[in-house]
C-alpha cells in the first residue's frame, strides 16, 4: 500500500470505531453545548454587543472540544498494545499520523457543525449570511488545531496525566491560529467581508497550517519510533 492509502485506511478505521461507539463524539459535543450555556452567564451584554465577542466565544468552545477529540486520537490505541502494533507495522510513520489527524479533523468538524447552529440560537447571532467564508475559516483553523493537537497527542501518549498535559502544551502553540480564527470570525459575524484588512486573518491561518503540517509530518518519525 502506498503511504496515502495507508493513511486513508487508518482514518477510515478510526472513524468507523468512533461511529460505532460515538463515545468521544458524544462527550465532546455535550461539553461544547455545556460551555456555550455557561458562557451565556459569563457576560451581561446587550443583544448587539454579543457580535463583538462572537468570534472569541465560538473558537473558545471549538478549542475546548477539539482538545478532547485530539486527545483520543492516539490514546485510543493504548489498550491491548495497539499503538505498538501500529508503530512496528511497515506503514510509514507519517501515514499513521496523517490518517489519525484526518479522522480527528472529521470528528471535530462534526462537533463544530452541531455547535454552530446552537451558538447562533443561544446568542441570536446571524451567521447564515457569511456562511461561505465562515466555512472556509472553520475548515482552515480546524485543520491547524487537529494537526498540532494530533502531534502533541502522539508526544504525550505515554505520559501520566495525559488529559491535563495536552491543554498545557497545545494552547500556547495554537495562540496565533486562535487569534486569526477569532478575529476573522468576529469580522464575518459583523458583516465585513474577508477582503482588505481582514484578509490578513485568512493569510495567517493558511501560513500556520502550512508550516505546522510540514513540521509535524516531518517530525513525527522521531516520535513514533521508540
Amino acid at each position, binding site marked *: 500500500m502506498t503511504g496515502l492509502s495507508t493513511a486513508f485506511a487508518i482514518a477510515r478505521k478510526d472513524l468507523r470505531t468512533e461511529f460505532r461507539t460515538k463515545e468521544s463524539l458524544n462527550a465532546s459535543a455535550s461539553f461544547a453545548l455545556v460551555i456555550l450555556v455557561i458562557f451565556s452567564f459569563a457576560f451581561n451584554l446587550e443583544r448587539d454587543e454579543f457580535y463583538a465577542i462572537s468570534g472569541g466565544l465560538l473558537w473558545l468552545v471549538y478549542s475546548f472540544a477539539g482538545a478532547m477529540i485530539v486527545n483520543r486520537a492516539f490514546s485510543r490505541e493504548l489498550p491491548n498494545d495497539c499503538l505498538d502494533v501500529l508503530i512496528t507495522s511497515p506503514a510509514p510513520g507519517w501515514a499513521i499520523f496523517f490518517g489519525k489527524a484526518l479522522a480527528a479533523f472529521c470528528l471535530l468538524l462534526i462537533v463544530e457543525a452541531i455547535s454552530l447552529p446552537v451558538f447562533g440560537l443561544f446568542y441570536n447571532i446571524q451567521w447564515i449570511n457569511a456562511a461561505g467564508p465562515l466555512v472556509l475559516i472553520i475548515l482552515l483553523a480546524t485543520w491547524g488545531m487537529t494537526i498540532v493537537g494530533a502531534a502533541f497527542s502522539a508526544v*504525550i501518549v*505515554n505520559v501520566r496525566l495525559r488529559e491535563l498535559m495536552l491543554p*498545557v502544551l497545545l494552547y*500556547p*502553540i495554537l495562540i*496565533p491560529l486562535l487569534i486569526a480564527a477569532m478575529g476573522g470570525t468576529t469580522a464575518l459575524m459583523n458583516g465585513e467581508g474577508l477582503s482588505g484588512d481582514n484578509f490578513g486573518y485568512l493569510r495567517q491561518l493558511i501560513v500556520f497550517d502550512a508550516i505546522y503540517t510540514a513540521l509535524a509530518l516531518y*517530525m513525527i518519525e522521531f516520535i513514533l519510533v*521508540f
Partner: protein
Amino acid sequence: MREKAIYILCFLGACLMIWNLHHIFTEMAPEAAQGMAGWILFIHVPADFMGDILYTIALVTCVLYLVKKDLRYDSISVACIEVGTMFILVNLVTGSIWGKNQWGIWWTWDLRLTTQLMKFLLYLGYLVVRPAISEPSQRATMSAFIGIFAYADVPLVMMAIRLPNVRTQHPSPVIETGGINSVMLPFVIGIFAQLMMALALMLVRLHQESNRREIDSLRRELHAL
C-alpha cells in the same frame, strides 16, 4: 574546580550588576522621555537576549539529541531551557513594572507582549511535561520534540519588535536606531553580568542533570541485581 568556577562566575555577575546600579545613581542623568525608570533597560533587554540565546542553544541540542540519541544533549537542553525561561520571566516582570510606570497599565495585548508571553508559556509547557515521563530516553525524545516546536515563537518575537507598522506602545529597538550609543557601557556590562549568571546557573544545573543520569542508571542496576 567546577564549584570554584561557579562561585567566581556568580560573584563576577553580582559585582557587575552592582557596578551598573552604582553607575546609574552616580553618573547617569534621567533618560529623556522616561525619567530614571528607563534604566530598567539594563536588566530588561539583556534578560531577553540571554533567554533567546539559551533557547537557540537548546534548539541545537534538541536536534542533536534526536539525531545522536546521546542523553548529554538532553541534559544541556533542559538546563538551557530552565535558565532561559527564568530570564524571560525576568524580562516579562521588569517590562510589566516599567509599563505600570510609563503607561499606567500592567499589561497590554499588543503583538510584542503577546508573543513574548506565548514564548514563556510554550517553554513552561516543556518544563511541566518533563517530570511526568519517568523513562529517561522517552522523556528526552518528547522534550526534544516539544523544544523544537516551541522554538518557532522565538524568531516571531524578534520580528514583532521590528515590524514597522504594528500599533504598539513598546519603544522601538534602540540598538539598531543608535539610541543606545550614549549608554552603551552600562548596557554591555548588563549583558556580561547576565552572561556570567547564566553560565553559573547552567553549570549548576548540568551537574544536577549528570547526577540525575547517574541516579537513573543506578536504579536500573539495582533493578537488575
